[in-house]
């Protein structure tokens, strides 16, 4: 992993959590969206995380850091997918998007669920920052061995 492997690993976590926060914000913004380009209401989106191995390394890392190791090198977002749960039906005959029975299909987003996801996302981001700071402290204390 080299001297700074832990920092690269945690940085991948920061990137992934920030993308997840983007997706959650988009869900919250679209909680009442009944029209999309594809037709129909907005579908809740969620991030799929995948563990990162050496093949997915940042291409500019030194060749010496790319040696095979049983330790993984962080996380990557495999994709952003749609939640296939059914839409919420709300009876509102005056709504322009209501069907012939007077029901409007609203997104399958639970705002409380999204708020909780946002908190876990924030905490996960903070955990990765803490991990980076710990790695920095370790390097700095190693530096202290040579200082006098």
């Amino acid at each position: 992993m080299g001297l700074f492997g832990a920092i690269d690993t945690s940085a991948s976590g920061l990137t992934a959590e920030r993308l997840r926060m983007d997706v959650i914000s988009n869900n919250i913004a679209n909680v009442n969206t009944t029209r999309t380009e594809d037709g129909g209401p907005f579908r809740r989106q969620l991030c799929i995380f995948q563990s990162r191995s050496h093949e997915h390394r940042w291409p500019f890392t030194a060749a010496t850091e790319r040696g095979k190791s049983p330790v993984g090198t962080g996380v990557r977002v495999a994709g952003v997918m749609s939640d296939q749960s059914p839409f919420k039906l709300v009876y509102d005959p005056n709504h322009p998007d209501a069907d012939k029975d007077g029901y409007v299909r609203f997104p399958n987003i639970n705002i409380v669920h999204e708020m909780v996801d946002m908190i876990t996302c924030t905490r996960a981001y903070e955990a990765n920052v803490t991990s980076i700071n710990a790695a920095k402290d370790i390097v700095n204390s190693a530096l202290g061995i040579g200082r006098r």
Partner: protein
Amino acid sequence: MAKVFDGRPELAGKRTDDRHIPIDNINYMDVTPSVATDRVHVMRNDRNNVDIDVEMADLSKNTMLYQIESTRLAAMFSDLNDIITRGGRA
């Protein structure tokens, strides 16, 4: 100083034995940094692919490497100072 940074250093230590510490004619013009552009990764739809988290991690790595190397360089000068001021006095 100007001569050295123009790539025309004059001072070099003569060695009469292979085990002597070399005082080399280091030419700073031999350092040729290159800039690589990442056109592979995708970050945003406007094709700006700067990942701020990776950049901040690289920044802290660079800072730590600088601190390590400057500390070792300061220690080397401190050693040389010891040799000059206290050398030969047993």
